[in-house]
């Protein structure tokens, strides 16, 4: 067996030079120390991971270590990581990257992640893995930065595309790789063209349900492994086969994909306990609620749903938005509007807000409160202040420094954080284990993102979630028909995004709004909502059945 052996010839030249200059000579202790360092840092075997030894502050879970070993030893560093949501794919990717760096195989790295996760990745790599990763800011230097985190959109943009394609990367990571499932898209072609040695694609959606999706992703990692696109389509489409019906294909895929499920990690997951808190409006409030509803029903051009929703959140939210509406009107029945505004103004409180105060006062725990409206956020902050409950606010639009500061204030001083947006920035609030959905978003994805802030990896306590809903209002319908039915609170809905896009329902919030707008009666909206959730539910069950087969 022949093998190429290369010698360090430059060392000989350097040696000749150095021994002529006494100042370059090392003393005996230092000479020994250098040898000791090499002995300590060497990678003694092809097999065992060395990275955990260098990261004593991290505790890896068994499935994460197994994943890294599998990817490095059996997949030669090109793999699809498709763990279920919340099992720590970022940790697995970080561990694999660190291992390759320690083995001296990787220097230049490109990490492409969704915009909302860029900072989160940078934080995790730097703080947890001690990997000096940089985010692509305004003046990004693709050539001279070793480890860069960017978004797919930035990287493939006309401004940067060419420079990036000229680089030779040792390691490329693409998070949310389901964006690469179609080989005709710019995203796919861009990643295909990247010059890369090792490559990880991360996704939480079960791509294996769609044959062409999995084909395309694998063709980025191991072109030709599943044949050409034409072969593949012919073979599987004609026979109308699915991945789970074909043990041979399943076997093939398992050699390039790691997919852990919560149930087989053997890790104890803290529970999430859900409680719906039904709040009745006072008679006066309920009357005003109907007044708002009627008012906008009469102005037929526009739907009342936005305003009654806001009214369910706070007087302020509704009031401000009606004022805005008035400004946009050319002709208006002034006495009627004034009457409406006066009715809102006269309300002393808001039933939900009082309930919130009562709940928080009954406990010493920290609470994170989510609301959909900024006006409500400000009102709640004022109200809590009156009650001497220390609270901070949090918005997606805050600058990074302010976000970190608010998080710290919440951790160390405040009892309550009132937030409007959860998704924007991936802040971790594991120290908190009580969450209040003061009002419900009509998009279940947003809800999961909210819960995910506290019920995630590293949460050591059971998590308690309170959902506020007003009796006899639109709140009640959404709660009963949309949420309880698809059991959103109980399940981690990692698949929902996929389900909604498969069902061609990318904007579920809009769907629900439309149902309310177009229905002439409460009964009609109930039936329509029921239909919508049934579709999601049946698809969900279908998918679960498939998943279990695989």
């Amino acid at each position: 067996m022949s093998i190429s052996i290369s010698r360090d010839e430059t060392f000989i030249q350097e040696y000749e030079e150095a021994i002529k200059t006494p100042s370059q000579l090392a003393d005996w202790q230092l000479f020994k120390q250098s040898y000791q360092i090499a002995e300590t840092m060497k990678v003694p075997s092809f097999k065992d991971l060395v990275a955990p030894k260098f990261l004593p502050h991290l505790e890896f879970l068994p499935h994460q270590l197994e994943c890294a070993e599998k990817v490095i030893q059996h997949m030669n560093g090109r793999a699809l990581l498709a763990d279920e949501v919340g099992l720590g794919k970022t940790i697995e990717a970080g561990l694999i990257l660190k291992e390759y760096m320690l083995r001296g195989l990787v220097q230049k790295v490109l990490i492409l992640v969704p915009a909302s996760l860029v900072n989160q990745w940078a934080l995790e790599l730097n703080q947890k893995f001690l990997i000096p990763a940089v985010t692509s800011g305004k003046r990004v230097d693709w050539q001279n930065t070793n480890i860069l985190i960017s978004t797919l959109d930035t990287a493939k943009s006309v401004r940067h595309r060419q420079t990036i394609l000229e680089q030779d990367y040792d390691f490329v990571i693409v998070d949310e790789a389901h964006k690469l499932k179609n080989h005709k898209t710019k995203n796919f072609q861009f990643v295909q063209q990247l010059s890369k040695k090792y490559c990880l694609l991360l996704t939480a959606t079960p791509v294996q349900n769609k044959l062409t999706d999995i084909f395309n992703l694998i063709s980025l990692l191991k072109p030709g492994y599943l044949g050409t696109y034409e072969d593949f389509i012919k073979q599987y489409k004609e026979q109308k086969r699915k991945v789970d019906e074909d043990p041979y294909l399943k076997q093939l895929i398992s050699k390039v994909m790691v997919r852990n499920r919560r149930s087989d990690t053997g890790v104890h997951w803290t529970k999430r306990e859900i409680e719906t808190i039904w709040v009745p409006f006072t008679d006066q409030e309920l009357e005003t609620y109907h007044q708002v509803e009627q008012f906008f029903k009469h102005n037929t051009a526009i739907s009342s749903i936005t305003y009654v929703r806001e009214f369910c959140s706070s007087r302020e939210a509704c009031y401000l938005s009606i004022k805005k509406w008035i400004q946009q009107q050319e002709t208006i029945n002034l006495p009627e509007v004034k009457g409406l505004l006066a009715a809102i103004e006269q309300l002393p409180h808001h039933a939900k807000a009082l309930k919130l105060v009562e709940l928080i006062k009954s406990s010493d725990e920290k609470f994170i409160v989510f609301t959909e409206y900024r006006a409500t956020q400000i009102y709640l902050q004022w109200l809590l202040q009156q009650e001497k409950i220390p609270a901070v606010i949090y918005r997606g639009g805050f600058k990074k420094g302010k976000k970190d500061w608010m998080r710290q204030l919440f951790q160390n001083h405040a009892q309550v954080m009132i937030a409007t947006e959860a998704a924007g920035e991936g802040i971790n609030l594991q120290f908190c284990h009580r969450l209040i959905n003061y009002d419900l978003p009509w998009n279940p994805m947003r809800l999961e993102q909210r819960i995910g802030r506290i019920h995630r990896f590293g949460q050591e306590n059971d998590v308690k979630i309170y959902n506020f809903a007003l009796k006899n209002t639109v709140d009640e319908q959404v709660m009963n028909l949309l949420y309880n039915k698809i059991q959103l609170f109980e399940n981690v809905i990692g698949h929902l995004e996929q389900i909604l896009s498969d069902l061609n329902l990318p904007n579920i919030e809009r769907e629900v709004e439309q149902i309310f707008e177009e229905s002439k009666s409460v009964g009609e909206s109930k039936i329509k909502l029921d239909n919508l959730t049934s579709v999601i539910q049946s698809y969900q069950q279908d998918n679960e059945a498939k998943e279990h087969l695989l």
Partner: protein
Amino acid sequence: MITNLNDFLHQYFTIHDCEVITESNTEMTIRLTRELDQVLMNRPFYWHYMDKIGRAGEPMSLYLDTSTEKKDNNKEWIHFGSPRLQQIFHHIKQNARFTILYEETNGESKTPLHPWLVTNIMVHYRGKQKKESIHSIGLQLINGIMKANMMKHMDEFTMDLRMSDYSFTISPIIKPVSGLRRIFNYLENFLLEEDMQWVEESKKALSEEIQLLNYFFHQQEENKEILEKEKERLTERLEPRIEIEFINAGLFYLTEKSSQIIIKRDYEAGTKE
């Protein structure tokens, strides 16, 4: 092997003339010298400015804790993965590549010192996976005797950058540079005798993947460039090869007695050659 990081660091800072205050088994405070401040504290402008206004400048102190777990103190936690230790390691490696050392004698009688070439070498095995091995090889430059585990042999001797009084050196017959080549040749032959299964496996994996690659792109004229690039990177990733890299090397002058001890002694366990 570094078995006690605390001792290792203590030694490092002492070698570099820093004042080290030991506070506990794991905690230490180091008053840096200007030299180490410049190496470790990353504040070139400060020193530039001090030089410009003609002031001496004040080196900083380091407060380190070598515990295996991070403690809640105001010390900097230093461990094998920490950037600070990497920085120190780097500094040592850069400055300990070459040396000429003389064995210490009592300085009372005329003592001839025999030349040895001492080399420490890292071998990188790169294929589907990667591993490393370290070889410490000594070559007596008069008679050409070669010894493995040289650093282990050297452990008991005290070496110095200056020659003791009344010692004198015997000139090498084998020139150090050709000695280095001899060691290369010897090591190469040794490596070729090793188990080559990993080479076979890597070659097999590489050729399989290249076949798949060719097949995948065979009807895609427009993607020829991608194919070529993929092939190139694939080869880089999987092709088996060995790289021999020097950690450091030096000319060591040893007494006749020490030379003989080394030549006669054999380390059975762990002897590679």
